[in-house]
């Protein structure tokens, strides 16, 4: 029987593919695609020009013409990036209106989150232990952010803001949306027509409307749905909306995975006498979820970016705190580019990192090393 290692070894031993140019020198191979034909030479020149403009502009703005000291007045006169703005506003942009002397608590939360995400990303740790890890991270997060126990000062949800809030909304949204999404995907693949129809309606309605409308619904209509006397916190309302939205998209990703499992697997599970839940838990889902990991990571990237929409119902996520910093009366109209570029770089680095991870996973799953 051929094992995955055999295949990998065979691939390593296979002679290198013959390239048409392989007989020529390195110089030839480097420059042929660049200036092989007149059109290509023109394209190369145009690209060099664009790159040159980009590098010159970035260098000039970020370093050469940058204002490194002084206050808003210096930046108003200067033509480049305004570093004093970051000095004055960095903590506000990241932590928002969370009490200043308690910032260490949310910083610790972010470190915990990043650490847990880092561990989750390593396939060797894909065991049941991860569930306990995330369970304890979530409990620690709740204690640290909210406080009120162990001598920590209580911080109301209205002051939860900035990058920690963006992390929290997307992480909790995905963590709770995932089990819900799996159940929805199973329901959609179910043989019981009524359950299938309910799942299809739920998934398609949520996916057919913009996230804004679900956020609006949660912020305006949810209070009406509750019995009199019960109020739901604004943050919790947004979180519920995000969980529901995430669940519908995760369900579709998992459905793709379920469809990739050959019928024989279901039939073999039945033949062994496993009942439905045993068959799903032990045979079908472990394989289906593995297939759906790359799309799930892409969904996570999308959701991290989509949490910016909560600004429309008045929550202070990272983008909002950056904008608030820019609109501080002392700085208004001075550091517009600085603020947006800072926020863009933070999102870019985090999303690109996750995207690179997703591509790594795809390669790994294709090789079938597990």
């Amino acid at each position, binding site marked *: 029987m051929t094992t995955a290692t055999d295949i990998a070894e065979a691939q390593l031993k296979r002679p290198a593919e013959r390239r048409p140019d392989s007989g020529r020198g390195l110089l030839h191979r480097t420059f042929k695609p660049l200036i092989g034909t007149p059109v290509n030479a023109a394209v190369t020149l145009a*690209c060099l020009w664009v790159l040159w403009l980009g590098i010159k502009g970035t260098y000039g703005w970020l370093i050469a013409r940058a204002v490194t000291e002084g206050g808003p007045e210096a930046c108003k006169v200067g033509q480049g990036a305004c570093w004093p703005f970051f000095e004055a506003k960095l903590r506000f942009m990241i932590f928002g209106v969370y009490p200043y002397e308690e910032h260490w608590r949310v910083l610790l939360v972010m470190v915990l989150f990043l650490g847990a995400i880092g561990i989750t990303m390593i396939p060797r740790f894909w065991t049941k232990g991860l569930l306990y890890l995330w369970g304890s991270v979530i409990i620690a997060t709740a204690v640290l952010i909210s406080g009120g126990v162990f001598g920590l000062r209580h911080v109301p949800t209205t002051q939860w803001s900035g990058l920690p809030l963006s992390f929290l909304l997307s992480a909790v949204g995905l963590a709770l949306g995932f089990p819900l999404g799996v159940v929805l995907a199973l329901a959609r693949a179910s043989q*019981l027509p009524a359950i299938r129809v309910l799942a299809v309606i739920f998934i398609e309605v949520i996916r057919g409307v913009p996230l804004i409308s679900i956020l609006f619904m949660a912020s305006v209509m949810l209070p009406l749905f509750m019995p009199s006397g019960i109020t739901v916190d604004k943050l919790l309302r947004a979180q519920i909306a995000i969980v529901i939205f995430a669940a519908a998209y995760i369900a579709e990703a998992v459905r793709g995975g379920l469809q990739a499992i050959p019928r024989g697997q279901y039939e073999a599970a039945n033949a062994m006498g496993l009942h439905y839940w045993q068959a799903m838990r032990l045979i079908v889902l472990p394989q289906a979820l593995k297939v759906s990991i790359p799309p799930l990571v892409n969904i996570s990237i999308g959701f991290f970016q989509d949490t910016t929409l909560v600004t429309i119902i008045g929550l202070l996520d990272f983008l909002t705190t950056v904008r608030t910093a820019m609109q501080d009366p002392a700085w208004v109209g001075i550091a*517009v580019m600085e603020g*947006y570029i800072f926020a863009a770089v933070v999102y870019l680095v985090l999303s690109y990192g996750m995207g690179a991870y997703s591509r790594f996973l795809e390669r790994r799953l294709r090789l079938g090393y597990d």
Partner: protein
Amino acid sequence: MRIDALSGTSLLYNLRFRAILYQVVAVGSVVLLGLYLFSNVSEKLAEQNVATGFGFLDREAGFVISQTIIDYKPSDTYARALLAGIVNTVWVSAWGVVLATIIGLFVGIARLSRNPLLAFLAFLYVEAFRNVPLLLYLFLWYALIVTSLPSVREAWEILPHVFLSNSGLNVPSLEWTDAHTAILIALVAGGGLATLVHRRATAERIRTGNERTTWPLTTTVLLAPPLLTFLLIQPDMVLSFPEKGRFRLTGGAQLSPEFTALLIGLALSASAGIAEVVRSGILSVHKGQREAARALGMRDGLTMRLVVLPQALRVIIPPLTSSYLSLFKNSSLAIAIGYPDLVMVSNTTMNQTGQAIEGIAIFMLVYLGLSISISMFMNWYNSRVALKER
């Protein structure tokens, strides 16, 4: 042996009974939950003395919508205001889809270029737009247009007769009259005729194997009806170009900063996704297909048109549909920069009438309806290009 026969002991072990039981429980709990929520809502609304129902649609709206495609004035009804919002949403999404498709096609092909510099630039473009939230770009484009662009008096002429300034984009426009509609109808008719001619020629080629030159006939039947209509009616073809006046640009059509920022933001962000879709579509066509086409003696253009593109389209269409759908849904971010789309008009309506449930229901239904229509159209198109398996 039938499974049912085993279940003599208890009804609970009967598979069919269990299936029915599960479904009854599921539907029952959904219905109960719905009734519970409904009773809460009606209790709350009665407490707050809020009217219910869609009666408000016939009342006078009384608010201004800063820009509309269809005629709207504050004395019109709420229904008309919402319609203006729907048309605005569709308008910006439609232009966004067109622009995003064109840019995405070019960037996607550039990603596959043999020229490493071009491929690298296309890669930078795609990653920069895919990894930063659309909302951030919308705020950024809007801020750039309003604060960094020159005033109208020093507007930049980015293309001949296209001006960009801090009050938006000014483009040439055509005074639309009934005559133009007539010419458009004639053009569509010509298109129909040309398709017919082409189909018959193809059918004949398949039957007899003779290929005849059809393009002179096709072009004639395509262009003759609109040209004849034009000569018969002789309408005033007045193209209105924006001109720089002393204080403002006159003539042409002005696109507001909000519309411009939203359109640029939607088109650029969606184009990055479309570029990836196009790239993976082209990559999915096996190299052997090209080589086989060349072995048959096909020219490069023919190979692309008859062999590569039809196969790439099959892979491209489904993800392209979801790109279009998400562009359409993302147009709802208009509310963040103040372009009066459906969501913003509904929001104003809700604030004025206090009827939140109806307002949200209307715009969710409209989005749902339009999303379903787009995906049905794309599914129909997909089934046309899909692999016909024997």
